[in-house]
């Protein structure tokens, strides 16, 4: 897949566990953040987003936490399933007036049955 050659940190969990994936972003002026999931052979799939005026947002089985003080973003996945196995990317949009996403390196999540 596209991750070959990219040295990714890996998180291994058991099915049913809760997973927490962390991301440190670079630009304190960023005001919009998105988590993407990428499965092998596919493009990044939108999971959840959060704006900088929030510190927490919940979706279905997922929660994103934003700590602007330390420029840290996390994705929590409840009751992790084998189908959650993928590479997860955080992305930020700096407050420059443009819309380009700046991606992190990604974290590989491996879920064992």
């Amino acid at each position, binding site marked *: 897949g*596209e991750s*070959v*050659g*990219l*040295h990714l940190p890996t998180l291994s969990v058991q099915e049913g566990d809760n997973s927490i994936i962390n991301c440190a972003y670079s630009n304190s002026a960023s*005001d*919009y953040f*998105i988590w*993407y999931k990428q499965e092998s*052979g*596919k*493009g*990044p*799939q*939108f999971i959840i*987003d959060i*704006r900088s005026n929030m510190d927490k947002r919940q979706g279905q089985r997922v929660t994103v936490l934003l700590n602007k003080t330390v420029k840290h973003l996390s994705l929590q996945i409840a009751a992790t399933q084998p189908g959650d196995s993928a590479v997860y*990317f955080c992305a930020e*949009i700096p407050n420059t007036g*443009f*819309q*380009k*996403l*700046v*991606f*992190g*390196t*990604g974290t590989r999540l491996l879920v064992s049955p």
Partner: protein
Amino acid sequence: EAGVTQFPSHSVIEKGQTVTLRCDPISGHDNLYWYRRVMGKEIKFLLHFVKESKQDESGMPNNRFLAERTGGTYSTLKVQPAELEDSGVYFCASSQSSWTGKVSQYFGPGTRLTVL
């Protein structure tokens, strides 16, 4: 609703040849973006169209890359002549326009380009 589609899914060409990649955004999305991941690197922004106009092309690596979006619908990205370092996966994304600020970008499956 159909998602972002890209064609071809794979392309293998020789150094010096020309390749054209195509992206069809989600219907009604005025914003179209090109990104790429070259081996061992993160996904990097190339450029952004708003309808048929280039809003931001700060990520285009050099003048061997030409992106067009005539008519404001689908877009093409041409690489001419291709070099070895152009190998990677090229992603297209699209998003709606919003008066309230930034909105989510939805990605296509990518085109894997291999330059030999």
